């Protein structure tokens, strides 16, 4: 067995080497024939000459000379024939090696119509095809390299369409995004340009389809389809990058915005925390100097009020943190809102502002977390005093809507009202408007109030602007009728 196998492999090798054999054999035969016929002719000539000059002595030298001359010419002709054969073969070999190396040279032109000429023709075709594919691949890579995510989805899709057309020689190239199952593709009609398509994919997900039409004169091979698929998948990756790029861009913008808003907010908050602290310090210093009892009491009261204000501001900030962490769990109780509002008002110490409470609750109780509803009432009443003008009155009305079991508390001031431009973002957190317009609050009061109410099943809204009043906010709570029906 070991001895047999080399011999077995040898045979096909020899026969394939003989593939170029016939024309080689023909040429060789011609050369050898020439080499054989020429000495015969010379020999014949000498015999004829020997007949004419029958000098026997010179016959033998003449014969020898004739054989030498004939052999010489025969060898020369054989050499010429072999040289004429191997030169084109060498050219073809070199050219094929260049094709194999991926750098096809210029086409080879051989005279005639024999096997060698046909071999040269095949080489030329292959070389041209390789060159065309190389060009295609080059333009394809160049095109793909130019797909910057900053182009945007639309521009990139239309760029890909024109590239597909120019690279593959297609017409009507079209990038359709969406579920490929839902994209209708036309059927091939004989004689018309043939539709071709490739799925646009990115990371295992199909984003859409690239379609085009192949002119009827052109062939479409497996290799073309493979290359189009490759192109389509690169387009898919580029499109996905556009998407991601857009997300990063918008997140960046949002972060910058938030950052700026937080900076502004922090400036506002630290200012607003400093205000009561400053007055506490000032009054304490005065207290130390004050001699008369009444003046001392008054100053102590102010110190207490400012400390309360500080406490509430800090609590509001803490509430924001909790709201963001989702850690706020209200403990709802039943509450008579009338007395609650009055107490919140008294806690505000807004002695310079008139206050009117109309309690139409008819004994209905509101459902809310007592601590949190106090925060809400304080923020809303504080706003009403702040924005209500110098001697504006603050009015509060409590109503019951017994068809939906809701209790409504409306707080009205007589200031200029909320500017149209601020209405939309009034309840948003860190909104520039809120931070800028805040007088001496955190600018978070309305946001915190509304969020607190939402966690308790309540709502807070701004009433439409009305004649004869400023801003009007209504907070709505679940209501409970009085009495026990159990």
């Amino acid at each position, binding site marked *: 067995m070991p001895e047999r196998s080399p011999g077995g492999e040898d045979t096909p090798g020899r026969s394939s080497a003989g593939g170029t054999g016939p024309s080689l054999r023909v040429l060789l035969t011609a050369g050898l024939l020439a080499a054989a016929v020429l000495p015969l002719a010379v020999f014949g000539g000498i015999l004829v000459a020997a007949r004419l000059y029958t000098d026997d002595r010179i016959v033998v030298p003449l014969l020898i000379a004739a054989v030498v001359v004939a052999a010489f010419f025969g060898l020369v002709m054989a050499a010429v024939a072999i040289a004429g054969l191997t030169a084109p073969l060498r050219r073809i070999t070199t050219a094929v090696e260049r094709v194999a190396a991926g750098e096809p040279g210029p086409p080879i032109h051989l005279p005639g119509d024999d096997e060698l000429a046909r071999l040269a023709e095949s080489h030329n075709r292959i070389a041209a095809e390789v060159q065309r594919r190389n060009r295609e691949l080059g333009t394809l890579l160049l095109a793909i390299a130019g797909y910057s995510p900053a182009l945007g989805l639309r521009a990139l899709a239309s760029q890909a369409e024109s590239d597909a057309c120019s690279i593959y020689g297609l017409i009507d190239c079209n990038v359709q995004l969406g579920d490929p199952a839902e994209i209708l593709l036309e059927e091939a009609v004989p004689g018309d340009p043939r539709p071709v398509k490739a799925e646009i994919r990115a990371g295992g997900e199909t984003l859409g389809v690239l379609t085009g039409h192949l002119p009827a004169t052109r062939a479409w091979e497996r290799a073309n389809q493979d290359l189009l698929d490759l192109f389509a998948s690169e387009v898919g990756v580029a499109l996905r990058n556009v998407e991601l790029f857009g997300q990063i861009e918008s997140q960046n913008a949002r972060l910058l915005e938030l950052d700026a808003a937080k900076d502004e907010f922090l400036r506002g908050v630290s200012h607003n925390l400093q205000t009561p602290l400053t007055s506490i310090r000032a009054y304490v210093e005065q207290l130390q100097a004050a001699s008369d009892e009444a003046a001392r009491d008054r100053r102590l009261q102010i110190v207490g009020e400012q*400390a309360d204000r500080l*406490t509430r501001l800090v609590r509001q900030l*803490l*509430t924001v943190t*909790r709201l963001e962490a989702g*850690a*706020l*769990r*209200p*403990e*709802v*109780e*039943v509450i*008579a809102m*009338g*007395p*609650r509002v009055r*107490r919140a008002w008294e806690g505000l110490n807004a002695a310079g502002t008139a206050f009117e409470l109309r309690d139409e609750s008819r*004994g209905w*109780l509101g*459902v809310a977390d*007592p*601590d949190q509803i106090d925060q809400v009432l304080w923020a809303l009443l504080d706003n009403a005093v702040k924005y209500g003008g110098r001697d504006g009155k603050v009015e509060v009305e409590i109503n019951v809507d017994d068809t939906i079991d809701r209790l409504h508390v409306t707080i009205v001031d007589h200031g200029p009202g909320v500017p149209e431009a601020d209405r939309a973002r009034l309840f948003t957190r860190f909104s520039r408007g809120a931070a800028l317009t805040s007088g001496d609050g955190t600018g978070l009061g309305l946001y915190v109030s509304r969020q607190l109410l939402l966690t308790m099943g309540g709502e807070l809204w701004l009433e439409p602007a009305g004649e004869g009043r400023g801003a009007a906010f209504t907070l709505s709570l679940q209501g*409970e*009728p*009085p*009495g*026990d*029906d*159990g």
Partner: protein
Amino acid sequence: MSEHRPRRILLVDDDASLLVVLSEQLRDDGYEVATARDGLEALRRLEAGWPDLILLDLMMPRVDGLALARRIKAEADLPIIVLSAIDTADSKARLLDEVAEDYVSKPYHYPELRARIQRVLRRLGDRIPRRSLVLGPNLTLDLHKRSATVAGAEVRLTPTESRLLQPLAANLGEIVSTETLLSRGWADTEEADPSYVWVSMRRLRQKIEVDPDRPVHLVTVRGVGYRLVASDGDA
């Protein structure tokens, strides 16, 4: 319950200036006050003698408030009020349901703190068991955890609801007057009136009765008050 002997309060906080001010305020109101700056000092004071109530900061160096409260509760049923910058909205505060009777958040208002202390001390007479109270197949109360199990499902009780149920549970089957419930539930709310009790009882019934329209456990005694009764569930 002797009303002659002054009530003793152990005040545990790492803020020295607060210890000074608060113990002065408490002494002015007739309490006997001992102070501790951290958990270890508090434990040493407890070895010397038990107070009637502990006022405890949650965040302290060396044995934090929660660990201290657990150690105390493991030894005796001593009422604890947590005084802390963390308030009830915090998740950590939830853990305190099992160990603390009440919370007061910092910065506190002294009158409110005093009201809570009084309420907790008054409630000492109620003898609330720190264990489950099974009232029937569909209702189990765990008042010390502020929770109830209704038809197999756990229901959270608000602090007020739990305060209302305590006198009812302590006097199981007997009538507790609306006035008593009002004073237990809303000791520190001036504007509270009997409608608070009526409405809260109606809401409580929605929570703990399987059929709130035909209550079997929380029964109204018209014009007088309420009774909490054990029942096998059939109305």
